[in-house]
């Protein structure tokens, strides 16, 4: 019973903390989403016909860059 009440207190505490954190993260996320979408909306109207293929090279750069950075970081930490 003592274990039970301790468990209850902790359990509800964690559930509430978790979901309150989630509230703040969601508020932040929504703000981020709006920030990300506004410039897009402004760009698009005047000639923003972004050709997807042209985006690719940078994406490829991203891929290799991030993985390279990750590997480097990991190796410097571990070796």
């Amino acid at each position: 019973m003592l274990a039970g009440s301790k468990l209850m207190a902790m359990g509800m505490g964690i559930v509430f903390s978790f979901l309150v954190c989630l509230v703040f993260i969601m508020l932040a996320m929504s703000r981020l989403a709006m920030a990300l979408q506004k410039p897009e909306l402004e760009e698009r109207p005047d000639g923003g016909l972004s050709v997807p293929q042209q985006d690719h090279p940078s994406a490829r750069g991203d891929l290799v860059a991030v993985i390279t950075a990750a590997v480097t970081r990991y190796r410097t930490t571990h070796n």
Partner: protein
Amino acid sequence: MEIGLEPLWLSTGLANFTWGQVLMMLIGGLLIYLAIVRKFEPLLLLPIGFGAILSNIPVAGIGGDTGLLGYIYHVGIETGVFPLLIFMGVGALTDFGALIAMPWTLLLGAAAQFGIFVTLMGALALNMVPGFNFTLADASAIAIIGGADGPTAIFLASRLAPDLLGAIAVAAYSYMALVPIIQPPIMRWLTNEEERGVVMQQLRHVSKLEKVLFPFAVLFLCILFLPTAAPLIGMLTFGNLLRESGVVERLSHSAQNEIINIVTILLGLAVGSKLSADKFLTVETLGILGLGAFAFCIGTATGVLMGKVMHRVTGGKINPLIGAAGVSAVPMAARVVNKVGLETNHHNFLLMHAMGPNVAGVIGSAVAAGVLLAIVGG
């Protein structure tokens, strides 16, 4: 091998029945009756009921180690695969838009989990009654019934108390079906006419990007603070990402249809195979049924009470009824809120507002399951 009437008679069901098996078959039949005639969660209770009948047939051994249902149980439930695949399907079927529009309704989903932890204490308290002997793991598995979420209950029970799995699953789905009976009186009792009549403002538009980011937000927190909930939350958010990403229509369709349907059939039959006389026909089962009802009542009440708190804090913008939807039982509980709201004001449709706490309740009970796993399963 001898051929004759004697050995043949000995292989009939009539010669081998035990009373327990007969009773369990009747209970299986009752579940099927409730599923077909009363429309109690038929997608689950019909296969569970049929599984109970099949696995209690003497001689046939369908629920045994080399029987069909025993085999399905071993592959799909012991491993946790089936409830997790269903959770993926739930994620793919759920639109979290209402929750994203009103993030504070997560608190309602949190408050309704109170039912879980009160029930945990209740189960431990019941040990003082002779005949009951629940371990902390048992009590935790029973308490999760209050989460009003089938796959979460089955997943947790399969980890913490496999022997009670049958009773817990039956209780969870039965009470989810009984939500329209259990909740309204509590909701009416705890609120006054004015509160119930609150008309909430229309939900804001939620962008596609927010819906795509949402599963990551939930998963992120889960990873940081509660990794034991990660299998459940992970598959829920994965399914939801399949849905919202918009680039994997084929996979989203598959998660929402083929996979969830196939797994539901197999899961139901396998859960039914745990309804054996020696595990189910015990006084513990009565305790589980009682505690389950208790858990639903408490969860509903704390959800509504938190709704009242938010009603005050927001200066009356929140209708406290929507707190009742925080127990999850999607989408039944939200519909009940809508119905009780309409009783007071015939033009007040609360369905969309209740969907927020309703899906918050799914996350809330998965979080609660993670807490129980972290503390009790460790």
